């Protein structure tokens, strides 16, 4: 299954991909499109991506997590036009131990933000459109 998708992210299928009878703890993170950014009202977002590198880099990140902790990881990132509240990214990590599931889930989302080539163009309520530059100011999600 590719990491990048232009279809709504189905968390249930990510859970199904990592669940197994010996992995009793499943930690997940879902990043949703927010309705504001830097104090401005956001109407929607367009995500664009360097598709082949998204696949390669996500594959490396998942492999790193699965070698560092005894976990199975599922990861999906959206591309295309997203409405407020839609899931842009989802990570699911399953393990026999919840500490490992949490640690791996956290690692993957941090590395995705740091390394995966995806860009977003925000459409604001005032009619302007901007490419988001997280390095230009402090920003959280």
């Amino acid at each position: 299954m590719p990491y990048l998708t232009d279809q709504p992210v189905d968390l249930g299928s990510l859970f199904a991909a990592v669940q197994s009878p010996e992995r009793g703890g499943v930690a997940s993170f879902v990043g949703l499109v927010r309705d504001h950014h830097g104090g401005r009202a956001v109407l929607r977002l367009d995500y664009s991506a360097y598709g082949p590198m998204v696949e390669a880099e996500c594959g490396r990140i998942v492999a790193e997590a699965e070698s560092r902790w005894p976990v199975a990881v599922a990861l999906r990132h959206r591309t295309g036009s997203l409405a407020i509240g839609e899931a842009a990214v989802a990570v699911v990590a399953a393990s026999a131990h919840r500490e490992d599931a949490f640690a791996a889930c956290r690692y993957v989302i941090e590395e995705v933000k740091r390394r995966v080539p995806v860009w977003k163009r925000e459409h604001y309520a005032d009619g302007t459109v901007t490419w988001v530059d997280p390095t230009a100011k402090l920003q959280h999600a």
Partner: protein
Amino acid sequence: MPAVADSSLTVRVVLFASYAEGLGFDTLDLTLASPASVGAVIERLRSLPGGQQLPPKPLCARNLAHAGPDEPLVDGDEIAILPPLAGG
């Protein structure tokens, strides 16, 4: 007569998002004197119309993996110049 004097290499440059908009294209085949590194691609792009909007040290990838400016090029490489990442 140095052995490398007349050799050259061609790489496929790919641009995205604000960089593609600024330079007005998203792919470009670039031929450089060999040997050359990723940094030489940046220099050449910055000399093009609109190229000054590229920072001197943008994030780059070589063949789908992050690469620093000193990474050497091989003929046929795909070199991507990446605006600040905003995924997740």
